[in-house]
């Protein structure tokens, strides 16, 4: 057979295959034109084809559907200019958009569509706000993101042209100090992201590009979280492949073992990168190593000292402008210790933050003593046993395993390390959630985060759902987590979710901890506080008193804990009109806080705010305004103007001023506050509702004074809105509901709807009696107003009966 003849065979075969079976024989004979050999060949091959048309039709391998090149397409405002590259997750394009006449170029990453891309999109929407707030000169900015017209998720990032970190340093033959200086800038960028709750999860030299002017830029921040754990990459087989593709070289032990990812995960990756920058070698990777070998090493093998990798390695030393022995001497000591501290297997024993790692490097550069200490086997054993004291059998086995490290098999120590990583991961989980919540509500950046309650709530709900499964048999840990969750729900104003968790956490701790353990005091305080917020003040007071008692006994060790309980008790006293008692405890709390944390701290702001309220409620207006100014300046310094607590403090100052007769100024303040609150926390948040109610009162007063039906109508609308929010978020029997009904009755009466006002005032009284069982001043006021409404309606008998029932003299 030759090529020419084959071409004829192929042509005749093609015609025959296209023909119907009945025509085939005749067609072939005609086509062969009497060439018997050709005819025989074609008939023979045709027979093969007819017997087995599927032969070799199913490939030994199958490939994913072809990915497109989207050059020239438009995605949102972006025009795709050309393909920059393809990776496991999809394609990266160069894209441009026009903003105010200028052309902006960017890198647009299209994530290959898979079964779970809806999940990716959902997560991306949750994360986007947070990612968009990462503004740092060394972090490639997330610009945009969404879904392409054909439903593939995409991200748009700042376009960075540069060289991977390690390559750049070697190409430029950067010395050790220059490398450290560059690394410091990377640490700062990572720290910036961590403070905004973004963990990178996939830091590696390839994700850190150095531009031509020597600026390091971190790519893909936060993207790992969006993509993690989703099956978003084509077929299931490929998914598995993709997940396995995540660079194990820079993965922390907790990533290999499936543990919790925290900021410490990034600290670990920074440690690996620093190791390579200094020693030119990876801590574990060796030629011929398979992936499982590498993963096992990450989990269980102690890395060699960076300085120990240098002898004989002339190329590495040369790239650092040194000879091997000088380089080894430079690395030995502090730099070795710093790197190994970042690389510790247990997340909690690494540097607590990228900033702490950076600080140690700065100390080294300045010639000061570093904070890192060499690890010791004895320490590791102690820590491990400490963490496992609940299980005597397990810890005994582990001690044996660790002490006998030199003789036990690799398999055993590997298993032990995995166990250690697992226990650590659980502890980290609680810490992660706690630090997440603290960041969301705490000292920094809370104004933007608080609006994003959806993602916080989702996190809380998810953790709560896993409580019983995840912490079965580990009660102390479970109580920690419940406490964190109760605190989180409380901070979201979801008191009904918070209360049962706080109760259970307290009960668990009382059962499993020694009776005088400080955690029990913390639990008493939290539950008392949540009950207070729910309006269950009778039950709350003894809990808070007990918390104060316990914490006073322990106040030398933890003065700030005592201050917290005193503060919370003071708030409760304010709410129950025990003003002198409130003043006393709040004064003490404020003194402790000013002494321990200084006047620029949010804790001072909070307690000063509460003390000012106590003064105000006792009509000591001068003290109230003075103290409130301290509160405001502390909060503005500590948490910024837009923070919820700052807005509350402002609101109070407005109220105090209003009490001083400046109604117009106060109304303007409240309107501004309402705008801020609605934006920050949503209009139905209890705190926003309080602002609405205050505004309603002022508007109503003005409406009465000016006989303005428009103002009265606005006041009624505002009051009803506040009422709905309180009922929804605090429950129908909350004192705030009574107060709001009370005010609403006044407005409705002023609008000339007397009978309706009576009904509302009756409801106010009923709720007020249920929520304030001592039938104190508040209820007496309501009774008086109800009686007045009856009289206005002409029913003096009902008014008289009511007054007699409550023993209230006629006003």
């Amino acid at each position, binding site marked *: *057979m*030759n*090529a020419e*003849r*084959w071409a004829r*065979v*192929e*042509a005749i*075969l*093609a015609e025959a*295959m296209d023909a119907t079976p009945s025509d085939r024989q005749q067609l072939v004979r005609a086509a062969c034109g009497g060439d018997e050999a050709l005819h025989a060949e074609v008939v*023979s*091959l*045709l027979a*093969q*084809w007819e*017997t*087995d048309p*599927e*032969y*070799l*039709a*199913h*490939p*030994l*391998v*199958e*490939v*994913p559907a*072809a*990915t497109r090149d989207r050059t020239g397409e438009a995605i949102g405002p972006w025009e795709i200019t050309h*393909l*920059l*590259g*393809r*990776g*496991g997750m999809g394609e*990266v394009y160069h894209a441009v958009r026009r903003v105010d006449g200028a052309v902006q170029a960017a890198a647009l990453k299209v994530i290959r569509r898979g079964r779970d891309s809806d999940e990716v999109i959902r997560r991306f929407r949750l994360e986007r706000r947070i990612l968009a707030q990462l503004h740092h000169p060394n972090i490639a900015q997330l610009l945009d993101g969404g879904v392409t017209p054909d439903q593939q998720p995409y991200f748009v990032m700042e376009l960075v042209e540069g060289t991977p970190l*390690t390559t750049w340093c*070697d190409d430029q033959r950067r010395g050790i100090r220059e490398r450290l200086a560059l690394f410091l800038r990377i640490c700062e960028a990572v720290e910036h992201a961590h403070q905004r709750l973004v963990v990178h999860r996939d830091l590696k030299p390839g994700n850190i590009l150095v531009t031509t002017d020597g600026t390091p830029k971190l790519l893909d921040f936060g993207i790992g979280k969006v993509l993690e754990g989703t099956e978003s990459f084509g077929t299931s*087989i*490929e998914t*598995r*492949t*993709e997940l*396995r*593709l995540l660079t194990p070289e820079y993965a922390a032990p907790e990533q290999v073992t499936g543990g919790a990812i925290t900021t410490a995960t990034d600290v670990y990756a920074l440690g690996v990168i620093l190791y*390579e920058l200094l020693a*030119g*070698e*990876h801590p574990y*990777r*060796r*030629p011929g190593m*398979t*992936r*499982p*070998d590498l993963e096992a090493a990450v989990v269980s093998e102690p890395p060699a000292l960076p300085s120990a990798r240098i002898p004989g390695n002339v*190329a590495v030393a040369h790239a650092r402008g040194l000879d091997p022995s000088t380089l080894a001497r430079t690395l030995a000591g502090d730099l070795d210790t710093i790197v190994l501290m970042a690389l510790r297997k247990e997340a909690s024993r690494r540097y607590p933050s990228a900033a702490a790692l950076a600080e140690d490097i700065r100390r080294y550069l300045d010639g000061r003593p570093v904070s890192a200490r060499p690890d010791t086997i004895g320490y590791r054993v102690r820590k491990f046993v400490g963490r496992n004291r609940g299980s005597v059998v397990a810890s005994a086995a582990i001690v044996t395993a660790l002490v006998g490290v030199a003789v036990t098999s690799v398999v055993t120590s590997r298993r032990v390390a995995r166990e250690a990583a697992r226990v650590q991961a659980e502890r980290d989980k609680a810490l992660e959630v706690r630090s997440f919540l603290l960041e969301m509500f705490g000292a920094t950046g809370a104004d933007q985060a608080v609006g994003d309650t959806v993602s916080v709530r989702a996190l809380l709900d998810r953790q709560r759902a896993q409580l019983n499964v995840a912490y079965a048999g580990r009660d102390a840990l479970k109580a920690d987590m419940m406490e964190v969750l109760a605190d989180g729900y409380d901070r979201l104003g979801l008191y009904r979710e918070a209360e049962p968790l706080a109760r259970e956490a307290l009960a668990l701790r009382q059962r499993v901890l020694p009776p005088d353990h400080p955690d029990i005091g913390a639990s008493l305080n939290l539950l008392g506080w949540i009950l207070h917020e729910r309006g269950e003040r009778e039950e709350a007071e003894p809990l808070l008193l007990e918390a104060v008692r316990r914490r006073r006994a322990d106040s030398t060790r933890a003065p700030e804990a005592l201050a917290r309980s005193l503060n919370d008790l003071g708030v409760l006293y304010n709410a129950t009109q025990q003003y002198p008692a409130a003043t006393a405890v709040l004064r003490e709390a404020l003194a402790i806080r000013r002494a321990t944390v200084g006047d620029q701290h949010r804790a001072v702001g909070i307690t000063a705010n509460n003390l000012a309220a106590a003064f105000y409620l006792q009509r000591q207006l001068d003290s109230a305004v003075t103290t409130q100014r301290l509160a405001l300046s502390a909060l503005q310094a500590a948490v910024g103007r837009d923070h919820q607590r700052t807005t509350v403090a402002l609101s109070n100052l407005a109220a105090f001023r209003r009490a001083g007769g400046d109604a117009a100024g106060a109304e303007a303040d409240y309107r501004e506050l309402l705008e801020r609150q609605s934006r920050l926390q949503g209009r139905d948040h209890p705190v926003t509702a309080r602002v609405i109610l205050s505004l309603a009162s002022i508007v109503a007063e003005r409406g009465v004074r000016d006989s303005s039906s428009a103002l009265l109508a606005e006041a009624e609308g505002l009051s009803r809105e506040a009422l709905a929010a309180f009922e929804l978020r605090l429950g129908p029997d909350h004192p705030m509901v009574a107060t709001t009904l009370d005010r609403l009755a006044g407005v409705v009466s002023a609008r000339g709807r007397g009978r309706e006002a009576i009904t509302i005032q009756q409801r106010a009284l009923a709720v007020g009696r249920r929520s304030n069982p001592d039938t104190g001043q508040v209820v007496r006021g309501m009774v008086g107003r109800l009686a007045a409404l009856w009289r206005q309606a002409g029913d003096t008998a009902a008014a008289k009966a009511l007054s007699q029932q409550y023993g209230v003299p006629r006003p």
Partner: protein
Amino acid sequence: MADAHPHDDGEITRLLHAASGGDREAFGRLVGVVYDELTRIAHGRLRVEPVGHTLGTTGLVHEAYLRLAAQERANWQNREQFFAVASEAMRRVLVDHARRRLRGKRGGHVEHVPLDDAIDAVALTDAQSEELVALDDALTRLAAFNPEGARIVQLHFFGGLSQGDIATMLDSSERTVRRQWSAARAWLRRELRGNVGTLTGLGA
């Protein structure tokens, strides 16, 4: 860092450039790279998965593709270019394995093949090994007078490319590719005769 990857990052790019310019030696070395990657993946996979677990060749090639693509980022011009190389490498991996298996069976000299047990995870039977070796020989004979047909068979059967992909790659029409494909495999099937029918669906 020098030992980070057996193939340093620049190498694949250089080979790709040379290969796309028609350099057969560069192409051959590229196949070697993919071959190494395939066998290394197979080896690693076997170590983490229970014995007896069948390693799909699908996963194998995908993983090689993803790894090499990730390693080299944008430098594979397109996926067809990769699969052209991968199909050749896959053919060699499997056929080498089949030959070793048969050689062992016949009591011949067993060379040192550290990855042999890894490829066993692909679970080729003796019959499949025989057919693979026969197919490989027949493909080589076919290529002597019908290089395009042989190439199409390799791209589809060992590389997993569709007829449409192959048409794009060869700058041909789908119809032409289908004609060449049908004729070539009819010829191959006749060549193999008794050894036909064990290979379909393997590992897919």
